């Protein structure tokens, strides 16, 4: 049969960010997909040679405007490890709370974009309306909606008072209760089921073989989550990753829907278990120049991110490298796109939750 190549992107209504997929079609079936990236490449990692390590955190935050808190946190934690800084416990708890809030806002954002991709605009609006409430909390506690700059090497810049923490938990629980109705639509609505169930199935073996991470792997039944390692105080919380076994687009949606309520619960646990020590130090002064190298792992909303930093005793780092979760999930996406219908391509692309600016930096 004659083959047709349909270029998709870099500017396409379903894509919030530019990536190009050359889709090779036989009739309506996609037989091959060739990705081209580089439209958002800024050369961020090479900026370490020009920006001092104390200020590079601001650059790292801008790897991605969705996980900006987690990127800033990853950099700060990695530098603290290199420089052997003991961070005050309260700062670590606050980081955990903000990190889980980032997960809530990122998943709500994605569920909206996903709903838009499968043609359910009403649901898109509902998710984004809920997300604004999380952003309000961010704005109140950090001063920013998108870019927070609240992490610094040695701790965090702002404290949250104990009464405010309790208010945040209450507000998030109300948000969770309000979101339950929307969540039920995602899980049970027949039109969504028709659109997503059985589409783009990634089996457990394949997910292992292509090294899927994050919700993508968990939707295929792999119990993988960096939070299970217990770092960043997660060992003090009761945590069990959300798993689904179907591995299709619907499973990936459902995993993210459930992770929202899980994150709300994690924040509740964190506020319950952190010492009531309002006014305790939240940062230590860091002096000197870093030497050495370090790997750091975090569980971002999209999956595991790995940072590598090498410092050479000057105020400029020698190397900064980030392996972001979308980069790890692109092989899985290409695998799924092959063999699907052309009309399912947007859903499959969206359900890996692509963050291209993370991938290309």
């Amino acid at each position: 049969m004659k083959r047709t190549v349909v270029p998709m992107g870099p500017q396409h209504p379903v894509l919030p960010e530019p990536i190009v997929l050359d889709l090779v079609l036989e009739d309506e079936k996609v037989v091959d997909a060739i990705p081209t990236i580089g439209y958002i490449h800024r050369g961020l990692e090479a900026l370490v040679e020009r920006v001092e390590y104390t200020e590079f955190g601001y650059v790292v935050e801008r790897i991605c405007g969705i996980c900006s808190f987690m990127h800033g946190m990853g950099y700060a934690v990695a530098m603290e490890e290199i420089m052997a800084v003991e961070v005050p416990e309260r700062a670590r708890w606050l980081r955990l709370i903000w990190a889980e809030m980032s997960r809530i806002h990122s998943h709500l954002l994605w569920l909206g974009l996903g709903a838009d991709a499968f043609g359910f605009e009403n649901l898109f609006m509902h998710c984004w309306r809920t997300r604004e409430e999380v952003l309000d909390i961010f704005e109140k506690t950090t001063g920013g909606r998108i870019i927070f700059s609240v992490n610094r090497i040695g701790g965090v810049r702002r404290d949250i008072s104990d009464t405010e923490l309790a208010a945040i938990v209450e507000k998030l629980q109300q948000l969770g209760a309000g979101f339950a109705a929307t969540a039920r639509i995602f899980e049970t609505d027949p039109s969504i089921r028709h659109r997503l169930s059985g589409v783009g199935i990634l089996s457990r073996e394949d997910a292992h073989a292509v090294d899927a991470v994050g919700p993508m792997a968990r939707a295929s039944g792999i119990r993988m989550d960096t939070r299970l390692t217990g770092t960043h105080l997660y060992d003090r919380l009761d945590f069990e990753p959300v798993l689904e076994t179907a591995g299709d687009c619907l499973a990936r949606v459902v995993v993210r829907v459930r992770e929202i309520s899980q994150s709300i619960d994690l924040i509740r646990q964190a506020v319950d278990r952190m010492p009531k020590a309002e006014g305790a130090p939240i940062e230590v002064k860091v002096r000197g120049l870093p030497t050495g190298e370090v790997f750091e792992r975090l569980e971002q909303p999209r999956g595991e991110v790995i940072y590598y930093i090498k410092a050479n005793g000057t105020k400029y780092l020698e190397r900064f490298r980030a392996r972001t979760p979308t980069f790890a999930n692109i092989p899985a996406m290409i695998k799924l796109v092959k063999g699907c219908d052309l009309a399912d391509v947007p859903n499959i692309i969206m359900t890996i939750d692509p963050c291209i600016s993370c991938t290309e930096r």
Partner: protein
Amino acid sequence: MPMSLFKRSPWILHYDGSSCNGCDIEVLACLTPLYDVERFGVVNTGNPKHADILLVTGSVNERNIEIIQNLYRQMPDPKVVVAVGACACSGGIFARAYNIQGGIDQVVPVDVYVPGCAARPESIIDGVVSGIAALEQKRKRSA
């Protein structure tokens, strides 16, 4: 320009140059219930031939020069370009990165600059409203 004087519904084409996603997400947030610009007839379209206003977030790099020029060329006259965020205005924090050539005005003429990192939805809406004023002027000039 008061909103009541809007005579037409400006349609917007959004392109992400090489932004960090922050401004993009804020552009999308303008469409959602809290800000809801669609009530003023502002529609986000994916087709350059339908668009009056080109919203660009992020700066210019080697690869997207052509894309931005293509999109601009395909839009019908009169048209307006709004640069959203520090990166689109000047390159922002990435101005010194090796693959960044600077703001959008290196490639296409920019009518409105919206500052901020990330630009807030309120300022993006303000930028679009200023863009509408510029659009009306261009329309009068060409008529």
